């Protein structure tokens, strides 16, 4: 296995508070990697650093062998790092199909991006199947602002996949979903193609164990432990960390 994403010794401080204090992380091709830890451990900050929306004071982010530390979120998305936000972010006045078309455009070649009539083709061949996969075909022509929370979450996943990601960053995708919707979400995420690696931040350990093959535990901005879900589940260190975090 090759390292798709390598995070080296990343530190982020907000004023005097250290959100990340020298974190190392490696995500391999096609890996399902979960990031867990108590509140304030720096999980979302780490996702921000990888996604490019926060610059670390120290450390490097290497994606597909290249240092992407100087690139902004847009440039990283064009290279294949896509992100699902805690609150679903969709284009409210655009229809579901248009949302996916917009998300698909940056990764197309310029010729295909602006080819006359290409919009319909992208909608048919790219957006259609993705919406179908997410169970959104019935609402394809509905403005995204009118969709329910769970549907918007699914639409956002469709948009992320439309950008042909190599690495998908998921920030608490189950937040605010009903039990039924969470079940669907797990099915969808389990069915993701293996060409896509996933880095998942999630509080619910049942989801983490269902979705991931590798788990990294963060605490106080440091890597506390890493291993398979089984190793983590039985690690006394991790239990201790969670107990402290809750208390």
């Amino acid at each position: 296995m090759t390292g798709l994403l390598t995070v080296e010794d990343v530190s982020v401080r907000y004023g005097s508070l250290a959100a990340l204090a020298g974190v190392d992380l490696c995500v391999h091709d096609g890996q399902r990697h979960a990031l867990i830890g108590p509140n304030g451990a720096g999980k979302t900050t780490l996702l921000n650093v990888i996604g490019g929306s926060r610059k670390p004071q120290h450390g490097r982010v290497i994606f597909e062998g290249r240092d992407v530390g100087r690139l902004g979120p847009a440039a990283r998305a064009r290279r294949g790092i896509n992100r699902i936000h805690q609150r679903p972010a969709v284009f409210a006045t655009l229809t579901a199909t248009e949302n996916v078309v917009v998300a698909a455009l940056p990764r197309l070649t310029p010729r295909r991006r602006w080819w006359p009539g290409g919009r319909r083709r992208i909608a048919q061949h790219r957006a259609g199947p993705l919406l179908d996969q997410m169970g959104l075909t019935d609402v394809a022509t509905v403005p995204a602002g009118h969709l329910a929370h769970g549907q918007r979450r699914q639409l956002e996943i469709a948009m992320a996949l439309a950008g042909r990601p190599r690495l998908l960053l998921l920030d608490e995708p189950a937040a605010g979903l009903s039990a039924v919707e969470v079940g669907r979400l797990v099915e969808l995420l389990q069915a993701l193609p293996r060409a896509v690696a996933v880095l998942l931040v999630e509080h619910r350990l049942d989801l983490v164990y269902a979705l991931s093959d590798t788990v990294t535990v963060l605490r106080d901005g440091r890597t506390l432990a890493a291993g398979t879900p089984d190793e983590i589940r039985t690690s006394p260190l991790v239990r201790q960390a969670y107990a402290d975090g809750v208390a």
Partner: protein
Amino acid sequence: MRDEVIRRARGAVAALALAGLVVAPWVVDDYTTAILARTLALALVGVSVALLTGVAGMPTLGQTAPYAAGAYACAVVGSQISDVGVVQLAVAAVAGAVLAALTVPLVVHARGVIVLMITLAIGELAVTVLGRWRSVTGGTDGLAGIAAVRPFWGLPVLANDQDRYLYALVVVTVLVGAVLLLLRTRAGLLLRAGRDDETRLRASGHRVPLYLSGAHIAAGAIAGAAGSLLVVAQQYISPADFGFDTSALLLLGVVIGGTASIGGALVGAALVIAVRDWLFGVLPGHAPLVLGVLFVATVYLLPTGVHRARGRWGLPSEPADQPDASPERDQATVPELHR
């Protein structure tokens, strides 16, 4: 089904309005025809304001700057180089686009009320320059005696108000049609997406500043072309044509028209300008007072104006949890410029 009916009805209304505009010069007197021609030019500027304010999400009070650049470029070309309308139109559009391109770095990274402020300063400074650069602009006296224009090589010159009006109508129709077509393409889709959620658009990998720059330059070109129409319609221009009140009136018209709707902007801008012209005709002394009161009243009457902080500019069909997102973003821009 209902959408289809609405679309048909809208098309029918637009066709009727266009037919009415075509026969208008034979119904009203010459003076009114000349006023109508000037209103058409201003409505076209209104379209450029709507393109920026509503479609791209960059509210502007400065479109009078490219409008003025186009008008003066057209006047200079008209009196010294060519009397062909198409040439003048092209020169004016290029002048507007160049001015807009020069101001791109000033506006493209700012958002919300800061853009409003910067564009207002740009528009006002442009008027100041017009008033002082006497050798080219004639100063506050303006430029008069601009030669009559012929629409195309080999055609006769536009000698009367009716011809000039019809020329303006044709140009406005063509340009508005082009804008509407452009908005139906992927470019329009991306602009709307950026207005909805710019951060999201960037997160998808789009180069948002590039799109905004493009929209700004295109809007400048349209305003510049409108400037050329103003020269044709009035055969006289002065800095007073491009004042701050013109910007504010156009913005009000665009807001009345629904901000993001091009047709609405045309109607709204034309309406506001017509009301102003009428007021200054019937109440010479107190027109600004009444106009000011009308501004306040209109803001209160606007469906998006009062107690409905929906979306970025109060557009329909925003999701339930969107309202708190827009103030956040607008305010986030304030510290951005703190250095």
